[in-house]
């Protein structure tokens, strides 16, 4: 089994060529989630999760009993009518699911707060439009400082729980965008670093054979070290105290929509708090033994 997890579309022909792989499979629609999962599993693959990208509302998602036990990530456009969503809550809570809403819609910040408070794991997907850093800070504060039990919220949970002072913490991992872990492949076996690159045709390799030698691939190696360009260009982000958990992801909008530095500084403080409280929890467990 290779080191990378492959992110691929649901394509039976492709899946039959992929054996013993760790996969994130993108399902074309909600109805096919069980079929996608079982088909991939039948090809001796390990399915990390099935992803569905939808622009519709969460309230319109046909959550189903047959999804139980399947790891699922849903990217939805908005929450939709709260009542509809609430009616499905008992089932949703039984699912191994993580719900992502896009930052392009302001109301999604509130929606994520609600979803998390309902003990459903969720996350914010960063969209194309500028957003309010204060609103993001409120969400992060709730996610990491909130005393009342709630569903985890990404990418805050990822950063806080995976933070290691010795390593960069790349929260792109939450969205399958981290070339150390994920590679994206389409049905024609074009390989890219991210889903966006795959859609744009920015391929680094083609064919499963090339995947076997991906560590020798120059473009792949460049992608691994792309973060160093911030340092070579003396980009503002290279001088930021929170680089280690952001890695310049908002560099293109920093002038237009400043606030990232303060947000990530607060996030790092929250991470320290989170780790300290996790440590205390562990200490308590030991004492109670």
């Amino acid at each position, binding site marked *: 089994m290779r080191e990378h997890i492959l992110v691929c579309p649901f394509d039976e022909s492709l899946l039959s060529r992929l054996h013993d792989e760790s996969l994130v499979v993108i399902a074309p629609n909600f109805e096919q989630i069980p079929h996608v999962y079982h088909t991939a599993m039948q090809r001796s693959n390990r399915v990390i999760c099935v992803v569905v990208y939808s622009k519709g509302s969460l309230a319109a998602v046909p959550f189903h009993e047959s999804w139980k036990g399947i790891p699922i990530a849903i990217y939805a456009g908005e929450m939709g009518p709260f009542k509809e969503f609430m009616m499905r809550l008992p089932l949703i809570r039984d699912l191994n699911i993580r719900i992502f809403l896009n930052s392009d819609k302001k109301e999604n910040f509130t929606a994520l707060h609600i979803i998390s408070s309902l003990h459903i794991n969720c996350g914010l997907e960063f969209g194309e439009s500028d957003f309010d850093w204060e609103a993001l800070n409120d969400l992060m504060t709730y996610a990491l400082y909130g005393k009342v039990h709630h569903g985890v919220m990404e990418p805050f949970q990822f950063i806080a729980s995976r933070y290691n*002072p*010795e390593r960069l913490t790349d929260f792109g991992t939450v969205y399958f965008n981290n070339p150390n872990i994920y590679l994206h492949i389409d049905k024609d076996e074009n390989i890219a670093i991210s889903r966006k690159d795959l859609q744009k045709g920015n391929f680094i390799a083609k064919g499963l054979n090339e995947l076997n030698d991906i560590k020798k691939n120059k473009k792949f*190696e460049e992608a691994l*070290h792309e973060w160093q360009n911030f*340092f*070579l260009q003396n980009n503002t982000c*290279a001088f*930021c*105290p929170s680089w280690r958990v952001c890695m310049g992801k908002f560099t293109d909008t920093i002038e237009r929509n400043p606030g990232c530095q303060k947000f990530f500084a607060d996030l790092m403080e929250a991470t*320290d708090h989170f780790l300290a409280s996790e440590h205390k929890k562990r200490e308590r467990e030991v004492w109670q033994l």
Partner: protein
Amino acid sequence: MATIIFKPTEKCNSNCIYCDVVVRKKPKTMSYELLELIFKNIDEYLKSIPQERIQLIWHGGEPLLLGEEYFQKAIELQEKHCRDTKHRIDHAIQSNLTLMNEKFLGLFRQLGINQVGTSFDPIAGVRGPGAERDSVSYNSRFFKGLNLLEKHNFGWGFIYVVTKKSLARPLDIFYYLTNMKLSGGFMLNPVLIYGEDRENIGITTEEYADFLGAIFPEWWKHRNRFPQVNPFKMFVENIIEKKKTVGCEDTGRCAYGHVYIGPSGEASQCGRAGDWEIISYGNINERSLIDIMKDKQREQFIERNDILMNGECKGCPWWEFCHGGCPLDSYIKYKDFKHRTNRCEGKKLFLEKYFFPITGIRF
């Protein structure tokens, strides 16, 4: 352990603003014959002291300019002449990394090297080749070297030299460096000028103290994020944890532990002393390493401890982790080694103005 600052070449592919060796000297490279003589001497020295070890620090210039063959030759000569003592030779290397390749790394592994010391500066025009000091291409090659080190699981640490150009942006520089090497693993050293300050980069001891002081509150608050930043870590270890982890300049014990050997076999006390041609212990072509290590001139560094303890440093609470500082600092000012370092006041200033108030600790 004895330390040999081993400079087989003075040639360098960079023209760093704070280094005048290439400018001042006509850079030379050590011949294979002389290299062979060095290993014979090391073997003889180690056989004469059965419990002793030698740390051989490959320095330059840029040692990678020697080429892979040179290191291959060193391995062969060590095998040939130090068959019984090679396990007591610890090689280390200081390189600017810009010429690093996998072959070098393979050879370094054979020499038992598993980490590389380097230097870096994010400020344009400080490090780089040519009169313009093209730091863009230089830094690009530096990062390629780093990537190779990390790919092959070599550790690395570096020195940042604080110059006049650094003074305006202490925190920016600190964040940049800790972003580049997350846990730290670097030392903030003041620039050392001997003779004319051609580039106008010299700083006072007070400026150095204030540079450190601008960074220290952030380091202290978040020291778990970047624990390996010196001199802060060393101050904490010495003052709070009562360890004695000081750099060579502060040990008070450099007298018999160090030797510099240059490309023509010239021997001196250390790298600085050799570069600045302050002390001469003769030449390895004419004297054995055993003799060089026992040179009578070394006694003055032992005597210096007594002179300072009963003189300028008498009653100083920080004697134990300073010992009057580097004897060469004394030489710069007084042309002898009998005085404390001229950096003493800066160190005190940093402790009094920043370290103690911020940490709340009194010594």
